[in-house]
């Protein structure tokens, strides 16, 4: 995810990454990574991206001239998926209406990625 400061809203990171930041660590499905001190703010509402990146084995890139920060995906499993539990996905349709993948729970889903290019 992209940020204009080193620390961001925890919920923003959670929806961008699929990881949930809890007192016991960063969790996705049944996988949890301990975070230790200095990653989350005292009340848990903010998270410091460079320290989080270190714990999750994620890349952290700084575009200094433009004041931008980007954290890459976690590498804890060495694969794109750390768990088989599908992450939440919320994307807009053509009219800008948000659609949540979890709204289809109870049905099988074929999620197809395509592109105009």
């Amino acid at each position: 995810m992209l940020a204009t400061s080193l620390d961001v809203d925890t919920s923003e990171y959670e929806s961008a990454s699929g990881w949930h930041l809890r007192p016991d660590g960063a969790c996705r499905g049944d996988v949890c990574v301990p975070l230790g001190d200095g990653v989350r703010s005292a009340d848990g509402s903010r998270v410091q991206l460079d320290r989080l990146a270190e714990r999750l084995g994620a890349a952290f890139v700084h575009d200094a001239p433009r004041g931008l920060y980007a954290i890459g995906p976690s590498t804890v499993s060495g694969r794109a998926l750390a768990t088989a539990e599908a992450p939440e996905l919320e994307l807009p349709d053509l009219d800008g209406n948000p659609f949540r993948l979890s709204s289809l729970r109870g049905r099988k889903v074929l999620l197809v990625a395509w592109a105009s290019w």
Partner: protein
Amino acid sequence: MHPKGLEVVTVGLDAGGVDAVRPWIEAAHPEHPSLIDETHVLDELFGVTNVPNAVWIDEAGMIVRPAEPANIERSPLREMDIPEGLPPRIHDALVEVKEIRDDSDAYRAAIVDWVERGAESPYALTPDEVIARSQPRGREQSEAAACFELGQHLYHAGDVDGAVQWWRDAHRLDPGNWTYKRQAWSLASTAPGEPSDLMQGPTELYEGNWLDDVKAIGGGGNYYPAFRP
């Protein structure tokens, strides 16, 4: 398949956003959710690395097949004879496209089997298999994702030169991710107002291009591997 409990969701990965995908979506008149992913978030969340790719998710929200090549329909390009007299690069690109195995019948049959038999279907993988078969992801892939996102942000902000710099880094770090490459090449070689350039030939902006990069990995069969039951 819908009455049997299968929902199809299509996601257009396009930094060009609504404008880039609208003509395609409107022509297809989809009855299923048809979504737009400007930042290629499907790469990060599901391990998509090329299109078309598909992910199977069961009723409980568990992935039973990770992102993989998904030939749902036969491609006329793969079946046609290559006309004579084409410019050499177009001829060579078509040769590589024809190298991609057309396994759409087997892929569709696998979907039908899963829809009918659920977890009993041999095509529904265990959670461990799903993780193991998802794309490799180390530091370089993670850094490439961060670079791609910086580029996408700058492209949107109108800083095309800045976007190109970050996208070049993404290509170098994760050469196996074709969504990063094809997206950037297409934006570099498509004239304003024209449909996306699918040839994606050499430009001054990027070291790679579609034909030479496909040849470098051994051709179309490696670029878009066959369905692996």
